[in-house]
């Protein structure tokens, strides 16, 4: 990074929810209830998370979502950007979430089925609130496939082609979740993140596998992602945001100056 402009990495606390519960599985499967998402959200806000990401992994399957209720409640005490995803199918769903207090909406399955949705949402509310959520599974040495419905259904689509198309349509940010690494705490799929951040013309959030601050520094030294999402390691208290920030700072990695 240049001396004049050090762009800090954004640290995003990821909260996977089912109904009103905070859950976390491995490889987006085997979901286990951890507790109250909003309680954790308030803690992470106080500890200096830069953003929150709520994902309802099963909303796409059951056509329902409690997300707007959760958001309505959490924005009473949490004053950082909030992205919400899961079960978003139409412009009206986006409108409802934004009115509840969300700042951005993440769209996966519905965008794969009907890519036009990305453009419609961008035109209605601006590109800055459209996050394309990509669930990626490695299929061979050099390729990753797009999955939908909480990592359950394969689509036959190439991850990088889909990212490029989505940016053309109106995605303002890309959330890339590695299904292989999700919930493992074994580190990011660096190659995937490196390639995704290289081809994307908009900011990329890396998700899946973060367990230690070393995983974050490896990610940042080998890719140009703009943000790192961390879920499970935070929820089980194996990683704390203040420690993570301090350890990145000590390595000269820019993070938000949080007083």
């Amino acid at each position, binding site marked *: 990074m240049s001396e004049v*402009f050090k762009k800090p990495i954004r640290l995003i606390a990821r909260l996977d929810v089912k109904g009103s519960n905070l859950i976390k599985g491995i490889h987006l499967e085997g979901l286990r209830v951890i507790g109250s998402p909003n309680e954790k959200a308030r803690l992470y806000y106080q500890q200096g998370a*830069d953003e929150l990401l709520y994902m309802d992994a099963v909303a796409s399957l059951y056509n329902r979502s409690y997300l707007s209720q959760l958001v309505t409640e959490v924005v009473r005490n949490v*004053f950082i950007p909030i992205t919400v995803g899961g079960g978003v199918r139409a412009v009206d769903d986006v409108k409802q979430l934004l*009115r509840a207090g969300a700042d951005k909406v993440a769209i996966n399955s519905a965008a794969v089925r009907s890519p036009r949705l990305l453009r419609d949402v961008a035109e209605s*509310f601006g590109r800055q609130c459209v996050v394309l959520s990509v669930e990626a599974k490695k299929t061979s040495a050099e390729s990753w496939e797009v999955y939908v419905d909480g990592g359950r259904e394969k689509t036959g689509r190439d991850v990088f082609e889909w990212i490029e198309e989505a940016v053309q349509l109106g995605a303002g*940010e890309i959330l890339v979740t590695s299904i292989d690494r999700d919930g493992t705490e074994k580190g990011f799929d660096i190659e995937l993140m490196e390639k995704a951040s290289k081809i*994307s013309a908009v900011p990329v959030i890396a998700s899946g596998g973060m367990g230690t601050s070393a995983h974050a520094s490896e990610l940042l030294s080998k890719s140009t992602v*703009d943000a790192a999402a961390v879920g499970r390691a935070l929820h089980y208290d194996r990683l704390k945001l203040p420690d993570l920030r301090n350890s990145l700072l000590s390595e000269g990695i820019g993070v938000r100056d949080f*007083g």
Partner: protein
Amino acid sequence: MTLANSGVAIVDYGLGNLKSVAEAVSSVGGTAEVTSDPHVVSGASKIILPGVGAFPVAAQALASSGLGEAVVHAAQRGSTVLGICLGMQLLFDIGNEFEVTRGLSLLPGEVNQISIDEGPSKLRGTHIGWRNLSVENLGQIHPLFRGIRDGESMYFVHSYAAHPSRADHLLASVKYGGSQIVAAAGDENVFGVQFHPEKSGRAGLRVIENFLAT
């Protein structure tokens, strides 16, 4: 219908995260009313003009609803106004997003696209994220930034930026590549912030608290 003296009218013209702005006002002890009624706005002593989206769409919505005129009327009577993000940009004379559009002309100046050439290649067109604010201008710290230390991080998301005509209207700035972006501008009773105080944690809430105290 009028607001009590301590109340803040949050202008609802269909754009922006009104809920979060209202919660932020409440959390620092203010009373917020989200309203799309021009009479309420023109009678309010404090007004917040939020906004996310494109300048022409917002300017059109303000004009057709009568809310723009209500904000101008209130400001001319001495009410304090805080524009946030696009709401700040709308306070100026002219917006050059997609097409040349008239703003509310409460502050002299115009709004132009951030030049991508000014920053490093990884800026990707939109200025998004937490940035360190410089709150001193011409040796002064504006009351809006009382208690905010120089270098405090605020959350930005925008692709256009305001260019005030008057140097003394600049209240805060952020570094962007080799140049500066206007992070806040204002005169006696009309202020605008390019960042989102309602999304900038405790420091952002302090700015809202300071606005309520103006």
